[in-house]
């Protein structure tokens, strides 16, 4: 990132290559839409490039990148209409392709329900869940991205767990 700030385009290209999959995956989980996720990721890297001179060497790169991605996801989510969970799940298959057809169908159904339940979470709770579950971020890192305290993150994840458990009828 420091080399990018000094004008090294190859260094920035390397950053994009290393992080694009995770950024798109995070955006897609948040938005439940593939095309929107790629647009968000593209815009995130554009903003990252524009802000490259503000990057400090003592800062973690993820702390610099994730707030950009998260804010764009929130913006995008507010712009477009919410899609039904079934439509979102139908965009691409998930689950291992070697499973039997009935199990694949069950898996898809569960995935659709989970995605729908995630979509209905409040924004901050959704982000906290995605960053914790899929990015393996600590409470402190999530708090930095969301601009809140660690205690607030703990509370968000706790409430999200209760909501998801009830919605998915997990007992």
């Amino acid at each position, binding site marked *: 990132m420091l080399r990018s700030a000094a004008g090294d*385009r190859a260094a920035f*290209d390397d950053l*994009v*290559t290393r992080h*694009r*999959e*995770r950024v*798109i*995956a995070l955006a*897609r*989980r948040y938005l439940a839409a593939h095309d929107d996720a*790629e647009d968000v*990721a*593209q*815009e995130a*890297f*554009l903003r990252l*490039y*524009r802000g490259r001179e503000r990057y400090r060497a003592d800062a973690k790169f993820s702390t610099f990148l994730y707030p950009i991605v998260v804010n764009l996801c929130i913006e995008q989510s507010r712009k477009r209409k919410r899609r039904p969970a079934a439509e979102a799940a139908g965009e691409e298959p*998930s*689950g291992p392709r070697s499973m039997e057809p009935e199990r694949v169908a069950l898996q898809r159904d*569960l*995935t659709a329900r*989970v*995605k729908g339940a*995630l979509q209905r979470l409040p924004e901050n709770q959704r982000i906290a*869940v995605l960053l*914790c*579950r*899929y990015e*393996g*971020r*600590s*409470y402190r890192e999530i708090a930095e991205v969301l601009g809140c305290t660690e205690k607030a993150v*703990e*509370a968000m*994840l*706790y409430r999200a*767990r209760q909501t*998801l*458990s009830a919605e*998915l009828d*997990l*007992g």
Partner: protein
Amino acid sequence: MRCVVVQRKLEGYLAGTLDGRTRGAIDRHLDTCASCQAEMAKARRVWECLEFDEALDPGPAFNRRVWASIDSSALHAGGSAIRRLRPTIALTCATAVAVLLGGVTGREIGRAGDPAARGARVVAEWPVEMLDRVPLDSVGGTYSRLVADTGGDVR
């Protein structure tokens, strides 16, 4: 460790992001607390339900699109800067042309009672910001300052 503290840290526990000490304290608490054991079981079920893979590498085409948008936005940013400076550029050019040609139109007035002391003041029909760019050889300073010094409208 109290139940309310344990139950708020279960996601961190499952993600493996808690420090060893906190993790150990949670383990010891879970050994003896049925309520927190039930809550941990719930947290695990939710955690496992969230297991769906959205990672798909878009490949080098994505990088090309990123660079296209970066280069395109840099082009627009340059154009915007020129558009913002246009009025200032126009004003400066107009002033330079007028000074070179000596084509300032206006009327010259003197102040009653002491024209020599105050000097001849040329008042053009230009806006103040342009007048301020014309040096007042007789009294020095700028038009705005002259108005302030004389305490009145020199027109």
